[in-house]
C-alpha cells in the first residue's frame, strides 16, 4: 500500500553528484510555490533566531497588570498608527494575564520550529530504521513490521496522539513524541519502498557479487535514492507536525502554561474571539503562515525533484 506516498522512488541517479545538487537547487528555486515558501520560512527563521532581541518584554512577564491596563485596553496599541502617549505601546496587545502578545508570538516561533523539527527528525530516524530493516530482511520480519505500521495507521492520528500524551502526562516534548510516533509509518514506508526498488536492481546484485557489504549498498545506493522522497515528505511532515502539536496544545495536552506556544495561546483564549480577537487571530495567522511556508516549500521540492515530470 504505497499509494499514499507522494512520490515514487527516483530512477537513476546522475553520475556526477556535484552537478546533481546544483541542478536540483536551481530546479527548486524555479518553482513558484517553493519561492513563496522559502520567503515565508526565511522570515520565520529570522524571527525565531532573533526572538530574544526583538521581543520587547519577557514572554511571561505580566506587564499589562503592572501598567494597570483594563480589560478594554488589551488590544493592539501602535504608536505609528495613533496610539496615544499615555497608553503603553504593545503592537500586538496584551493577553488576559497582561503579557505582551508580540513577545509571546515571537518566542512561540522558536518553540514551534524546534518541536516541529525534533518531531519529524525522530519520526524519520525511527521510521527509516524500521523501513530499511523491513525492506532488507523481507519475509516475516517485513510482514511483522508492516503490520505494526498498519496498526499505527489504523487510528485517527489525533485520537492516538491524545491517548499517548495522556499516558505520558501532558507536555510539549511528550506531545512531540506522540505526534512523532504517529508519523513513523509514513517514513518507514518511504524507506522500505526505496530499499525494495533498489534491492533487485542488477547493479546491486553485481555489487554484492563483487563483495560489497549491505551497509555499503545501503549508504551509497539506497539512501541517496530515498533522500528525495524523505526530504519532500519531511518538509510536509514538519508542517503537519507543527499543526498537530498546536492542536494538542490547544486541547491543553501539549505545551503547558506558561510556555508561549501558538496553539496553547489560541486554546487558552478561544472564547475571547469577540472580546479580544487579537489574542486568537495573531497567533492563528502566525501558525497558518508557518505551516503554509512548509507546505509550499514541500510542494515546490516535490515538483522540482520528481524526475518523472516532463519539462
Amino acid at each position, binding site marked *: *500500500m*504505497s*499509494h*499514499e*506516498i*507522494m*512520490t*515514487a522512488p527516483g530512477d537513476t541517479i546522475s553520475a556526477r553528484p556535484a552537478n546533481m545538487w546544483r541542478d536540483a537547487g536551481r530546479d527548486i528555486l*524555479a*518553482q*513558484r*510555490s517553493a519561492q*513563496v515558501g522559502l520567503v515565508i520560512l526565511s522570515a520565520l527563521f529570522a524571527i525565531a533566531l532573533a526572538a530574544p532581541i526583538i521581543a520587547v518584554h519577557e514572554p511571561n512577564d505580566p506587564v499589562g497588570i503592572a501598567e494597570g491596563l483594563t480589560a478594554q485596553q488589551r488590544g493592539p496599541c501602535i504608536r505609528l498608527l495613533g496610539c496615544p502617549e499615555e497608553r503603553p505601546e504593545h503592537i500586538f496587545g496584551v493577553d488576559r494575564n497582561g503579557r505582551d502578545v508580540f513577545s509571546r508570538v515571537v518566542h512561540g516561533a522558536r518553540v514551534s520550529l524546534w518541536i516541529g523539527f525534533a518531531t519529524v527528525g525522530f519520526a524519520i530516524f525511527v521510521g527509516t530504521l524500521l523501513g530499511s530493516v523491513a525492506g532488507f530482511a523481507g519475509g516475516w520480519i517485513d510482514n511483522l513490521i508492516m*503490520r*505494526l505500521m*498498519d*496498526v499505527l*495507521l*489504523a*487510528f*485517527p*492520528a*489525533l*485520537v492516538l496522539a*491524545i*491517548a*499517548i500524551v*495522556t*499516558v505520558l*502526562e501532558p507536555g510539549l516534548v511528550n506531545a512531540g513524541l506522540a505526534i512523532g510516533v504517529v508519523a513513523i509509518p509514513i517514513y518507514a514506508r518511504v524507506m522500505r519502498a526505496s530499499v525494495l526498488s533498489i534491492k533487485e536492481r542488477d547493479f546491486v546484485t553485481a555489487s554484492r557479487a563483487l563483495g560489497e557489504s549491505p551497509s555499503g549498498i545501503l549508504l551509497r545506493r539506497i539512501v541517496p535514492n530515498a533522500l528525495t522522497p524523505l526530504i519532500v515528505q519531511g518538509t510536509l511532515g514538519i*508542517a503537519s507536525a507543527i*499543526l498537530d502539536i*498546536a*492542536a494538542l496544545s*490547544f*486541547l491543553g495536552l501539549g505545551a503547558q502554561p506558561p510556555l508561549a506556544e501558538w*496553539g496553547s495561546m*489560541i486554546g487558552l483564549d*478561544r472564547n475571547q*474571539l*469577540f472580546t479580544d480577537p487579537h489574542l*486568537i*487571530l495573531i497567533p*492563528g495567522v502566525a*501558525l*497558518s*503562515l508557518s*505551516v*503554509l511556508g512548509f*507546505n*509550499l516549500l514541500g*510542494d515546490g521540492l*516535490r*515538483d522540482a525533484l*520528481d524526475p*518523472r*515530470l*516532463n519539462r
Partner: protein
Amino acid sequence: MAAPFRVSASRSSGYTPAMLRFITRRVLLTIPVLIGIVFVVFAVARILPGDPCKAALGERATEARCALFRERFGLDEPIPVQFGIYLSDLSRGDLGTSISQGVPVSDMLVQRLPLTLELTFFALALAASLGILLGVAAAARRNSAVDVATMVGANLGISTPVFVLGLLLIFIFAVVLRDTPFVLPPGGRLTAGVTIIPLTESWGLTELEGPLRIVVDFFSNMYLLNSLITGQWEVLGDALRHLILPAVALATIPLSIIARITRSSLLDVLGQDYIRTARAKGLSEQRVVLRHGLRNAILPVVTVIGLSLGSLLAGAVLTESIFGLTGLGRTITDAVLARDYAVVQGLTLVTAVIYVLVNLIVDISYGYLDPRIRLQ
C-alpha cells in the same frame, strides 16, 4: 505511487484468479491488524494514569465509595482477567458499559456515530468536489500565478485552525446575517422544537429488539438519510442547514491534500507520452486534460479521499466541540480525559475498524482498477 496506465490497455474484467488471490491476501492481512488494534486499544486505555472513580465522582469522592465503584465496574480485577472479560464480551458484541455515564457503549455508538459519519461524508464530498476543481485548475496552468494562488488558497485552508474557522463562520452566518435569508444556525443538529420521527415509528417497528433494532436505530440517527427516505422534508431542510457550517469548517482539512494530489497526479499523467500523442492528434486542451488526463489521474485521488477519513475524524473533535455536536470524536476525547475505559476501548476500536475497512475497500478497488498492483 504507481504510474497510471495507458488508456487503451488492460482494464481487466473482475474475478480472475489473480484478483481473487489479491482480495483474499488483502483481507487476510487485515486480520492481524484488527487483532493488533484490539490489543493496543485495551492496553492504552489501561495505561492511562488517573482514577476513573475520581473522574466520575469528582470532588466528593471518598475512598470507601470508590471501592464500591471499582467493584461495580470490575476495575478491581487483575489486568489479564479484565482483558479476558473484555475479549469474551467483545465476541458477544458487548462493548461494555460507560463508567462515567452508566449506559452501554453500544448505545452511545448508535447515538453518536451516525452524526459523525454524516458530517464526515458531507465534509468529504465538499472537499472532494472543490479540491479536484482546484487541483485541475492548478495543474492545467502549472507554475503560473493561478497555480500558486490555488495552492496557496488550499494550503491556507489546511493551515487555519478548524476552531477559529468554525467560530468565524458562526459569527458571520448566525449573528451578522441573522435577519437575512442567508442565516445559518450556530450549532446543534435541529432547531429547538423540531423533532425527527425515528425509523422505528415510521415503519411501525417499535417492538423490534436485538441487533436488528440496533441497526435500524443507527440509520434512524442519520437525520439526513432518515428524513430523506421517510419524506420528512422540513426536517431534512433543517438538518441540512445545521450541517453546512461544520461541514465547511471540517472540509478545509482534506481540501488541500485532495487539491494537491489531484494536481500532482494530473501533472504526472500529463507528462506521459500518450498525452503528447493526444495533443498531436489535435484534440482540444480541455479534452486532453479532462478526458484523457483526469480519468487516469483520478485513482490516487480516490485513494487519498479514502485516507482523509482519519484526519477528518480527528478534525471532527474540534469541530464538534464548537458546534455543540455530540459525535464520535468529541466522545472519545472526553472519555480519554475522564478515564472512561469502556468508551475509549469501544469507540476507538470501532473507529479503527471502520478506517481499516475503508482502506481495505480502497485497496481492493485500486487493485481492481490497476492490474499491476495486484501482481505485487
